[in-house]
């Protein structure tokens, strides 16, 4: 069953189209990656899904109902975004207490454990936290909310590599015990590539890729070798990216050609490279 269903969704601001006929589905109990460049429309989409923004046109359903001003739907949703404004005079513990009131499935013990894992000073006012510590507060709220639909929009701005790994580990552990729908929007694609089960790539307000992550990882390849050998091997497949140096050619192909790879090396293309090469500003030479 779909946690999220979006059809022909358009969002226009004055003189700017943020989303242009977007259609997608997020299946329940799965980890989805919502990827794209800055300004691609990811945050706008998530704001519409959580009732914080009003779409210009199109159909949006969360757990089968429109989310806008719908308490039955929104009580099952938690949206943690990088730019989330916290009441500055709240202490960490008060922010968690507020989240506990608002979120029906809040797990206080899990929240306590995460506070320790991220070494957060629970009695310090939020306004005195570093950027990374504030991000940790958002991550704790998002995870401990156990909301059936949890959206993270660049949740770890300022977090160091160790803290990010803590986030990935706790997310996976908790997801295994309490499956739910997670939507993760991030630019650190390589770091989250192994977490994702489904990937949606948005570019300039349109869905460019909407596919199973394993399928994507298996399909796209990087081919390197002499210019003649690579051209011969890649014939008939439009490359996503092409670079040439000293007679050696490297191309990124969206799928593996159905012919023997003679004289060329073929490697799976990383999810990050696939995303970079698939966006409109990527190098398509």
């Amino acid at each position, binding site marked *: 069953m779909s946690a999220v269903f979006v059809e022909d969704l358009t969002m226009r601001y004055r003189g700017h189209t943020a989303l242009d006929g977007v259609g997608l589905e997020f299946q329940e109990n799965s980890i989805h990656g919502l990827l794209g460049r800055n300004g691609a429309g990811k945050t706008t989409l998530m704001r519409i899904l959580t009732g914080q923004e009003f779409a210009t046109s199109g159909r949006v359903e969360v757990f089968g109902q429109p989310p806008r001003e719908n308490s039955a739907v*929104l009580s099952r949703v938690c949206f943690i975004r990088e730019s989330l404004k916290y009441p500055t005079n709240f202490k960490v513990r008060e922010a968690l207490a507020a989240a506990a009131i*608002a979120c029906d499935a809040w797990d206080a013990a899990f929240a306590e454990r995460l506070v320790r894992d991220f070494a957060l000073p629970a009695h310090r006012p939020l306004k005195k936290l570093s950027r990374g510590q504030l991000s940790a507060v958002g991550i704790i709220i998002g995870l401990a909310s156990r909301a059936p639909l949890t959206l993270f929009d660049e949740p770890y701005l300022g977090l160091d590599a160790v803290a990010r790994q803590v986030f990935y580990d706790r997310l996976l552990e908790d997801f295994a015990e309490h499956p739910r729908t997670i939507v993760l929007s991030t630019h650190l694609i390589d770091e989250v590539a192994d977490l994702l089960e489904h990937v949606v790539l948005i570019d300039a307000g349109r869905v460019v890729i909407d596919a199973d992550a394993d399928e994507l990882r298996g399909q796209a390849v990087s081919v390197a070798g002499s210019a003649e050998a690579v051209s011969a091997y890649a014939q008939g497949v439009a490359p996503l990216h092409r670079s040439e140096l000293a007679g050696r050619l490297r191309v990124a192909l969206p799928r593996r050609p159905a012919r023997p790879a003679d004289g060329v090396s073929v490697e799976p293309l990383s999810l990050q490279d696939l995303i970079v090469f698939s966006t409109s500003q990527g190098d398509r030479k």
Partner: protein
Amino acid sequence: MNPTSKAVRVQILKWNQTFAIPWYSLALAITLVVAIYAVVGGGASDSGGHTGAATIFYASSAGTQLWLINQLFPFCMAMSVTRGAFVRATMLVVAAEAVIAGVGLTVLDRIERATDGWFVHVQLLDLPYLHQENVFAQALVYGVPMAAISAVMACVGAVFRTFGQLGLWVFGMGAAFLAAVVFAALTLTHTARSVGHFFASQPSLANLALYPLVVLAVFGGAWALLMMRARI
């Protein structure tokens, strides 16, 4: 727990921010004024000493709504509280704030009367124009302006939330322009004095409770409309 109850609980989680600041201010004002009058004996005259120090109570309540709208509202929305639930919760909190103000200030007013002006013949609350014999009317005179101030400040906060700094500037300029137009019209038609007489002839209960109620309805309605359209 229903969504409105959740939003109320989040709003009063920091209860000293939501409710207590005006009371801290008033306690400080009473302490200072009583101390000053005790030292200088300023209230020992036949007419007693009147001070407007209690206005600090209303002035210091003004920031609460700005805090609620610009800091707590976006946080609540992230926690998936609906706009409607937040608006209803705020109405309940403002109503509670007004009731507490009305009852609390009336109790202090009676203490002031019973102690002959805090034992130093000073009047902070039992001012001539505010004075009501009926306890209920006295509570209205103290409580309704509190709700009206909250509504005005909430409306200002919602304008800023919805339209940003430019919107707030336009709102301010518009209000100033409207006031200037009304003043000019009254002056040109030589009716300013009549309007003054009208309000002067009204019972203080009307000026301090009924007309603030109209302000509450107008600004509260505008605030609710803006909040239902607010984007985060």
